[in-house]
């Protein structure tokens, strides 16, 4: 029963959202606002169980009941978290800078080596490594093309010099690679959305009884 109601709710909401294809209407607005509310509630519940309880509540509880005074250290970030609320009080809104400074400094420091390793070294490695594969002319041609593409794209993004002569030609070639890349990414994204659409339509066909019976008879 519980599951059957769930399927009907899902069917109803799917139709509410698709009604937007006709025009903006109350059914779509209802589904849209419900989605916002439920997503916020979901985030709140997940944050409560994965962050609040293990990192704030349980340490403080063990500090108070078991005498683990070291756990009181969670009060420092909690205080910094509370400082975020000072943005609502104009007189004290300078206090919001402290937690921001912590978060920005922390994430900036963490990012530098990680980005260096994953987005620079690994990508350069991936560009050079195929040159080791000399099994066919096709593999070598591909490796050369990818390397040229990477260099031309990088030159296109190099704004510190005027684009003329060789750098102008290479940056033009960079645009060609970029356009193919954007087109391919666009096509890929369209297909991902289409597969979601097929999934939803299939869900409706499978679960609305009279449509399901028509489809089954057709087979």
């Amino acid at each position, binding site marked *: 029963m519980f599951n059957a109601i769930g399927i009907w709710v899902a069917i109803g909401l799917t139709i509410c959202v698709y009604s937007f294809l006709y025009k903006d209407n109350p059914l779509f607005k209802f589904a849209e606002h419900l989605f916002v509310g439920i997503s916020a509630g979901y985030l709140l*519940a997940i944050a409560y169980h994965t962050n609040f309880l293990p990192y704030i509540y349980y340490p403080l509880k063990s500090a108070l009941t078991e005498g683990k005074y070291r756990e009181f250290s969670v009060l420092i970030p909690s205080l910094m978290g509370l400082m975020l609320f000072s943005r609502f009080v104009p007189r004290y809104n300078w206090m919001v800078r402290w937690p921001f400074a912590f978060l920005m400094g922390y*994430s900036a420091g963490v990012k530098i080596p990680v980005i260096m390793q994953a987005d620079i070294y690994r990508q350069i490695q991936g560009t050079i490594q195929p040159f080791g594969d000399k099994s066919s002319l096709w593999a070598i041609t591909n490796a050369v093309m990818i390397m040229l593409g990477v260099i031309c794209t990088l030159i296109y993004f190099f704004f510190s010099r005027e684009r003329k002569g060789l750098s102008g030609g290479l940056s033009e070639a960079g645009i060609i690679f970029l356009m193919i890349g954007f087109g391919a990414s666009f096509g890929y994204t369209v297909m991902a959305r289409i597969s979601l659409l097929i999934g939803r339509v299939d869900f409706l066909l499978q679960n609305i009884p009279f449509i399901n019976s028509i489809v089954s008879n057709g087979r």
Partner: protein
Amino acid sequence: MKRQIPLIISFVCGIFMLIQFFIPHPGFISVYRGILNWARIIGVFALIIGIGTLVRLHFRRITRRSPGWFYSVVVFAGLIVTASAGIIGGTRGKLFVWIFQNINIPLDATMFSLLAFFMASAAYRAFRARTLDATLLLIAAVIVMFGRVPIGDFLWQAVAPQSWVDKVPFLPEQVAEWVMSGPNMAARRGIMIGAALGAISTSLKIILGIERSHFASSSQ
């Protein structure tokens, strides 16, 4: 104090996180984990502020009886029921899982699938082959789209001479794969490396206190 202390905090945190990566000493790892937990704790409060702002906005709409205030009631209902179900019953509770499976997932998938229609109309405007760039964009997108659906191979097998089909039965799929792993990969790598260099320079600016725009919201 109002200006200097935040800069010192940024500098100390940034430099520590930077050097701990290169020093796998248990002491450094322990401090790193501590700082990670601190960031999580601050994140909880940031989430509360975000949801608080949402609640404030919709509460105002309800109290002022603004046009469409009823929809704000729907937001509240969704928020309160889901959060209560998750907090009281746990994230594996029956009601929380039911809401996630029968409301959240269908709405999420349907909203994103709706984009297929809007992307089709956007594609019509973007892909009119007026220039070389737009033509390349069009050709790459069509190749990838045809290579990802069975109809691409079906058309190839129906239209192309049999001797070609025998040699390469799935040409659209193979060409799409080559576009994705060849020119597309080259462009993506170029963008990735460029963006990474930009992110590193911005991170260094934040650590050294040259970049301060994130403090701009507190103008006092």
